[in-house]
């Protein structure tokens, strides 16, 4: 069976490809070229499955012995992911480009490519499982990436398989060494793929994503400082705030006035969240009971969701530290992804 394997150049997707090849499949590798980076060594990585290094993917394919191609999606990535990232920051929100990439970019062209070459399915190195049409968390909870995948259209997911979903990271590393993959000891990186040096501010400022300058105020509205642009801040952040009195956190960002509102930790607490632009992979449960995850490595918190025309409201059993507007909120039921959306700006204020 011909299988198209999306290869980032990282150890995970390379191992996925090698395992499928070993299992006797007619493996074809493809790497999406998403941006024009000056290729460097191991650090060209990403939190999700970014194009670390096209050369690593090519070397793996050559070493294992299957054809490999590069698909240039630079333009679409620039429009659909980078422009969105910049615009979101400018609007005072905290975007998640990996979710956007999976939602808008990656899977469409890859599934099309798979169909075009007569491949029965597309495999990626994501840590997630697909069973009976449900998108489930990976066996390795530390590596689980199902959070990133809620935005992928169900008809595309139906064409996909995740060979690493049942494996642990250590198994994958061991397999990579067994196959003598060129990148088997490549470190994971936590940076966003298109900002390999991790300097978000410089990246945003170079692309017109800088937010307004303005005051930093406390919970009474009294000014306690000033800042150089709202894009330096994310809700929940402590760094960069004036050291006055108790530990302070960014509670809210007002992009129109450039005001950064701060408060004590308790001010971050939210009983409810408004989630907009919701995608459903399954019908929402009748009782509304789900676990809501608002960060890649964050906990999933029990809540009841209710759907309205303008989005979904989640009411938590116990108040959580509220997420930043623009971040993805994903609804899980048991092990499965029910759906997800984006935390709305007007979430703040609902205590």
């Amino acid at each position, binding site marked *: 069976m*011909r299988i198209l394997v999306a290869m980032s150049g990282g150890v995970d997707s390379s191992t996925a490809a090698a395992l499928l090849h070993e299992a006797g499949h007619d493996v*074809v590798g493809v790497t999406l*070229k998403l941006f024009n980076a000056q290729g460097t060594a191991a650090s060209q990585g990403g939190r999700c499955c970014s194009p670390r290094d096209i050369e690593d993917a090519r070397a793996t394919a050559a070493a294992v012995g299957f*054809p490999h*191609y*590069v*698909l*240039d*999606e*630079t*333009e679409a990535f620039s429009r659909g992911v980078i422009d969105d990232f910049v615009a979101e920051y400018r609007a005072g929100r905290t975007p998640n480009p990996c979710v956007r990439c999976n939602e808008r970019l990656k899977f469409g062209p890859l599934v*099309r*490519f*798979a*169909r*075009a*070459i*007569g491949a029965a399915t597309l495999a990626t190195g994501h840590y997630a499982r697909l069973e009976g049409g449900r998108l489930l968390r990976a066996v390795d909870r530390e590596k689980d990436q199902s959070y990133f995948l809620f935005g992928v259209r169900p008809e595309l997911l139906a064409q996909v398989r995740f060979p690493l979903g049942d494996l642990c990271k250590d198994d994958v590393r061991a397999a990579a060494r067994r196959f003598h993959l060129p990148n088997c000891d490549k470190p994971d990186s936590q940076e966003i793929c298109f900002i390999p040096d991790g300097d978000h501010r410089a990246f945003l400022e170079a692309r017109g994503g800088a937010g307004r300058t303005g005051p930093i105020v406390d919970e009474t509205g009294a000014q306690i400082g000033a800042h150089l642009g709202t894009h330096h801040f994310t809700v929940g952040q402590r760094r960069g705030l004036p050291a006055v009195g108790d530990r302070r956190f960014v509670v809210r960002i007002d992009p129109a006035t450039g005001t950064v509102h701060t408060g004590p930790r308790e001010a971050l607490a939210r009983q409810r969240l408004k989630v907009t632009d919701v995608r459903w992979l399954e019908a929402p449960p009748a009782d509304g009971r789900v676990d809501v995850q608002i960060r890649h490595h964050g906990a999933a918190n029990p809540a009841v969701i209710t759907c309205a025309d303008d989005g979904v409201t989640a009411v938590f059993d116990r108040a959580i530290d509220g997420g930043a507007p623009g971040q993805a909120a994903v609804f899980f039921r048991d092990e499965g992804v029910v759906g997800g959306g984006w935390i709305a700006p007007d979430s703040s204020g609902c205590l």
Partner: protein
Amino acid sequence: MQRGRIYLDHNATTPLRPEVRAAMAAAPWGNPSSVHAVGRQAREAVERSRREVATFLGCLPEEVIFTSGGTEGDNLAIRGLARGRHVVSSPLEHPAVKGALVGLAVTYLPVGPRGEIAVDDLRAALRPDTALVTLAAANHELGNVYPLEAFAAVAHQAGALFHTDAVQAAGRIPLDLRAVDAATISAHKLHGPPGVGALYLRRGLDIEPLMTGGHQERERRAGTENLPGIVGFGEACRLARIETAADRIGYLRAQLQRRLMDIPGARVHGDPQLPGTLNVGFDGADGQLVMVGLDLEGICVSTGSACTSGSLSPSPVLLALGLTAAAARQAVRFSLGRDTTEEDIDRAAEVTAQVVGRVRAAEAA
């Protein structure tokens, strides 16, 4: 399931002929600049090859400058002859020419929808300070062939020199360089080895070298000669001179064209007169996907110039013809060679029809 590989990308490179390989294996070693016996032997081998290349081109041996290939030849001719002055060129040129033009004042000629370049447009573009006109003898993507004599005559009337990139033309169509001042050729496009080529430079013309630091090639190209490459190049030119497969290749190209045009929504790009070149597009089928689909069935083609493949930027050559970016991305280039057989063409046409159908279905989904 996969049968033998079918290679239809001869405009990218051609297979080394066994005779050429044998000549290279038998080449002497030595530094041609050395005075001793070993050096003299090497020198003799270089000069024998130079005579073969000159005979093939119809020029004098001293008019042949050995280079590392087409890109160097284009750079040497353009930078070395223009010397910072005005140049006339076209948007259809190979990246090697485009690259060499960077930093110079260039007038790009208008291009017709099938890749035509009008002599009158060239005449109108020439200025009193124009030093050089550079236009390809045959286009690498389309296979169009251009009237060198007419171009050169117009250039000379205005006091400008005329250079042609003849990399795709040499060995494929008769090449008359009598009117031309400089011409670039490359060994690996005519079944010689990669990494070697020549610049024809008319006797008496002065050129500024790109590489200095040695007396080789009459002070015009420093560096110890690539002896095995040059010997292989000479043999490839000798073979290209004494036999031609142009008629047979032209016949096979016509067959392929007829078969491919039976596919609904197929079109030919340009006006191919180079016997082996056929650039086509299929409505609703991305060229890169068609190319990959063919590769997985053992058929090697390209989406354009090999130098720009791998990036999705549509071919500047096709855009210059007035194609939309979307249409330009549908381009697939088949280029045939002397090793191409009728069976290859049958199978290529049959598989292309299947692959195009599959790609269209995938894109429509």
